[in-house]
């Protein structure tokens, strides 16, 4: 059964206008978010993840504007809405959790009042008691114990994890259909991060909210996401179900990201790195922006922007490697990979640093035994 799309983005481009020229932060992005799913948006800093999110709720900073494309929520075109209608939509339709829980809370207001503020704005007819009831309900929902006592606490009395829970409560105050979480756990410790992720997943299942989860941590993605979209230099380069991305990635950038994780380093015999740095987007490079860092790049990648090729019904990747004409290159890469794998299994082709290390250890042992 195919679920309905709650949010559809078509060919969205966002640019910043600066003295040096136009910076294309988001380039021709098309994405859809389905009812009740968690879509993870993965990418490095500066690849346009946050700009994309902010354009969804029309909170772009000054100097940035949507150049082209459309954002539709349940058939409604967001760019056509007036500011007043948009205000209503923020909170009830789409709401957002930001990265740093400290800066998103007002230090001079109690937690209860800050959550109440949102409830009050969207339900002006509600009486005070009813609103308080709702706030306490929300605090319980996000896992804050003794909600009654905590109602009158200030943000500084809370730890980082608790603060992020409060921010979650504010975002969920009006039962939004879509929740955008912009790196909500990056500023937190691993143990707290695990708790928050669990809580978020529980809430999502309880309320049926669709979540757009922005992160750079593939570990976090594996915990929470149903679908994954990988972004590089303002463009989506690959998207598909979480399993397809983790076990059957097709874009060289996704390979690079996965192989740069220490988790996979052991079986691959060392960390593989993506050489170089992300490109500048003023102006963006012609062709595939990743080509200059890509060891598998084809000549075509430098010249022409690759379109999306379908790998399966749900899995798409933008790389010329998937073109019919690149069948030979694909074969070569497969061969190279399997060869590397078999060599590694034999233990021959060790990482050169590991090799050095072993040599050194041997030397040391020789020295130790006179």
């Amino acid at each position, binding site marked *: 059964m195919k679920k309905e799309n709650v949010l559809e983005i078509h060919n969205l481009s966002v640019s910043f206008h600066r003295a040096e020229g136009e910076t294309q932060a988001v380039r021709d992005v098309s994405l859809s978010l389905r009812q009740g799913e968690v879509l993870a948006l993965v990418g490095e800093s500066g690849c346009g993840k946050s700009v994309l999110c902010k354009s969804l709720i029309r909170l772009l900073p000054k100097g940035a504007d949507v150049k082209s494309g459309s954002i539709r929520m349940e058939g409604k075109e967001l760019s056509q809405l007036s500011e007043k209608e948009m205000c209503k939509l923020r909170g009830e339709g789409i709401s957002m959790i930001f990265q740093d829980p400290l800066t998103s809370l007002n230090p001079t207001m109690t937690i209860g009042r800050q959550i109440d503020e949102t409830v009050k704005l969207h339900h002006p007819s509600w009486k005070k008691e009813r609103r308080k009831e709702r706030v306490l309900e929300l605090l319980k929902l996000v896992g804050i114990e003794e909600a009654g006592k905590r109602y009158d606490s200030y943000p500084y009395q809370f730890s980082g994890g608790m603060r992020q829970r409060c921010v979650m409560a504010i975002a969920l105050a009006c039962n939004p259909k879509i929740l955008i979480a912009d790196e909500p756990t990056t500023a937190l410790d691993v143990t707290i991060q695990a708790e928050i992720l669990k809580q978020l997943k529980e809430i999502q299942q309880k309320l049926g909210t669709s979540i757009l989860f922005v992160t750079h941590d593939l570990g976090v993605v594996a*915990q929470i996401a149903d679908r994954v979209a990988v972004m590089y230099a303002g463009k989506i380069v690959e998207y598909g179900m979480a*399993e397809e991305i*983790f076990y059957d990635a097709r874009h060289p950038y996704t390979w690079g990201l996965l192989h*740069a994780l220490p988790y996979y380093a052991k079986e691959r015999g060392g960390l593989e790195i993506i050489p170089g740095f992300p490109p500048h987007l003023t102006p963006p490079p012609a062709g595939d922006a990743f080509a200059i860092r890509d060891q598998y790049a084809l000549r075509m990648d430098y010249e022409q922007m690759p379109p999306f090729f379908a790998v399966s019904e749900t899995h798409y990747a933008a790389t010329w490697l998937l073109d019919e004409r690149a069948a030979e290159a694909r074969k070569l890469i497969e061969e190279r990979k399997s060869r590397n794998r078999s060599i590694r299994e034999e233990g021959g082709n060790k990482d050169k640093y590991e090799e050095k290390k072993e040599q050194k250890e041997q030397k040391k042992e020789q020295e130790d035994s006179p």
Partner: protein
Amino acid sequence: MSKQEVLVDVQNLSRHFLLGKHQIVKAVDEVSFQIRKNEIFGLVGESGSGKSTVGKCLMNICQPTQGTICYDGVNLCDKREVKAQKRKLQQERQIIFQDSTSALNQRMRVEDIVAEPLRIQHIFSEKSQLKQFVKEQLEEVGLDESYLNRRPSELSGGQRQRIAIARAFGMKPRLLIADEPIASLDVSIQAQIIRLFQHLQQEHDCAILFIAHDLSMVRFLSDRVGVMQKGRLVEVGETEEIFSAPKHPYTKKLLSSIPIPDPRAVRKAGIEKEVCHEDVI
């Protein structure tokens, strides 16, 4: 394997901070561990567990309240001894901070930043030699000549961290303290920096105290690991020992909360957890 020589011996190190008259924060509390020569020692723990304070004590940036730190025969807690050996200590111990933006002087050029400690130590008598050395150092961290005249504000986070690494390794240190050097970097850049650390450590034979909260990187990089919780060192041991058979409950909790980038494993773990849960009930 025979026991290797100890480079740093930390015994009962404590560092307390006074908050007002009556409140004491025990940032580091009775911590003892050793760093051997040429090893990478990982120090992990949550934020606020006192990892960085240990690092700072080893650099004499902050004075310990109690305990002794013995670095290669020099007692770092004795001011007189430190003063007498100042030159040696300053050259042999180097530190890399988490936030490369504030660790580098924004008004200085990259060349001057890397050359500054070399100038202070009078390592090169001629300017041309110094410049050549700085160039070599930059090459070693993967930056070419064109970076010599740039300023930190023109560089990305990964590049700035490379400059900080070049500056530290330029002094040929025997002990390097890396205080969360990769925490503020992207995944692909993190891997680059870790590879660089491995490479330079092999080349220069120095010991590294690697402070981090990213456990998977620590597992990959370090030879031995210490786990800190609320100022106390709760577990120390060989990396594989700690990661495969943690003894302290806090270490177990910390390890189980590492996000595994493997959806199938996550699902499996989730089911196992549920089964365990039912068993308890």
